[in-house]
């Protein structure tokens, strides 16, 4: 592979997150390096999605620090995370159902649009030219994800696997530095899973996008990730190369139960 794994881009230090008395995350530290595929795995309820939501700015941890390119990140909102170049997909698909595939992916370009809201609203002059430029970019993404044939279809009518692909497309349209994928393979059949793996690896390879990925299906993850963090009951129980994690007795216990 041509890509080179770079420096630490996001460093999470001693993150703890509580909802009232429920501890969702307890003292978790790990880092994400530029251009790598980093997986967060764990059984149901391990705190994977909470972790992703912390990175994305949806949840604000009570304790701990997050460093983005060495700078400590202040309390931030999801749309600010988006501005910093962090895009995400959703576990239970949060697409704009009434809109076409094309429009859905176009919304991903919102932050890239430079003309002001007034021009955009009046739909004249520079805003029009800009739209064409973005449209071209979006067509590239549509080609990349091989969804040309459903370009004009309202997203709500598409089968699940394709919706997941559109969700990925919208995130890609942001040209993110870090792409957060919340269970991109959940509910897919084997073929769809293979497609999705291929897209993830291609994105990582062609655009150099750093990928953080959540899954509970261990098999898939081990094949495509560079490094893996394992969570269980909100605690980190493993971190390292896929092979190391696989042979880690604590991880095996978490996944297979104490009896094995």
């Amino acid at each position, binding site marked *: 592979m041509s890509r080179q794994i770079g420096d630490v881009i996001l460093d999470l230090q001693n993150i703890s997150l509580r909802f009232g008395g429920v501890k969702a995350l307890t003292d978790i530290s790990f880092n994400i390096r530029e251009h790598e595929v980093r997986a967060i795995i764990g059984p149901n309820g391990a705190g994977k999605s909470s972790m992703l939501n912390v990175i*994305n700015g*949806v949840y604000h941890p009570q304790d701990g620090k997050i460093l983005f390119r060495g700078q400590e990140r202040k309390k931030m*909102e*999801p*749309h600010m*995370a*988006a*501005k910093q170049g962090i*895009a*995400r997909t*959703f576990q239970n698909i*949060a*697409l*704009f*159902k*009434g*809109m076409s595939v094309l*429009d*859905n992916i*176009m*919304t*991903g370009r*919102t*932050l890239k*649009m430079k003309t002001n*809201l007034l021009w*955009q*609203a*009046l*739909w004249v002059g520079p*805003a029009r030219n800009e*739209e064409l430029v973005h449209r071209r970019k979006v067509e590239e993404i549509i080609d990349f994800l091989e969804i040309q044939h459903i370009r004009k279809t309202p997203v*709500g009518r598409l089968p699940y696997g394709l919706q997941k692909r559109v969700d990925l497309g*919208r*995130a890609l*349209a*942001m040209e993110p530095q870090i792409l957060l994928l919340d269970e991109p393979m959940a509910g897919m059949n084997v073929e769809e899973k293979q497609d999705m793996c291929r897209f993830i690896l291609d994105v990582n390879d062609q655009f150099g996008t750093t990928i953080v990925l959540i899954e509970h299906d261990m098999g898939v993850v081990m094949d495509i990730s560079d490094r893996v963090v394992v969570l269980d009951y909100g605690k980190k129980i493993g971190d390292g190369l896929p092979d190391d994690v696989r042979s880690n007795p604590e991880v095996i216990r978490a996944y297979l139960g104490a009896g094995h």
Partner: protein
Amino acid sequence: MGFFIETLIGGLMAGMLYSLVALGFVLIFKSSGVFNFAQGAMVLFAALAMARFSEWANAALGGDSLAMANLIAFVGAGGVMWFVAWAVERFVLRKLVNQEGATLLMVTLGITYVLEGVGQTLFGSEIYNINVGMPKDPVMMFESVFDGGILINKEDFIAALIAAVLVGLLTLFFQKTPVGRALRAVADDHQAALSIGIPLNRIWVIVWLVAGVVALVAGIIWGSKLGVQFSLATVAMRALPVVILGGLTSVPGAIVGGLIIGVGEKLSEVYIGPMVGGGIEIWFAYVLALIFLLFRPQGLFGEKIIDRV
């Protein structure tokens, strides 16, 4: 035949006015998922502002130029509606991101009372006139076609024209512009919209501003026809069946729904009314909406929601 068509046209004109109010409902619901109970109060508030500003501007200009005074008043009232939009977002909606639809509905009920109260405190509670120079005299048309011709109110005709243009512009705005796309995105899913960097706060101000301007136009037309008074706020209640009929998420639906209700009211009053002792106009719209709900809960043009189980 002439009489029937006259009733029909009268109904269409009345329907156009309902449509204008319904449009405000649809705009806010479509782009933020909030059923805005305060739309009627916004119409009243905007009309009050317009009426008083026009009065004041006219006095300041020495009564020379009514058009100029109205223009100033329109800009001023638009500014007031912008402030309302900003305040609603800043002090109400911002705290309620991702809350249940019912919570937001209750909140707009609260906004209704605030707007009604503040509006009358600021602008007074008398009956005011808005005079935008609408022609008041009716004209006879098609005298050669029908015996006795058809009586049409010029004012109604112009109002219908304004409403049609407004609807055209709004449809373009929603379907073609990036801002319109962002609005539709926010309506569909708050979390997802945030994650791709759509600034929710600014979008909400825009939506409420657009709805405010629509309320202003509706307020001016209603106000110039009926005078600006408190009962204007209850106009919204009559637009409620319109949005049920047309579908809460459809701009064309608001128009068609308004027309159907307007025509239905007038025709039923004239032709069925005498059989049951009259007074049909008052409840006809609600019954029609009820029957519609039984067969098409999403309205004529509304998006059919299919939930995955």
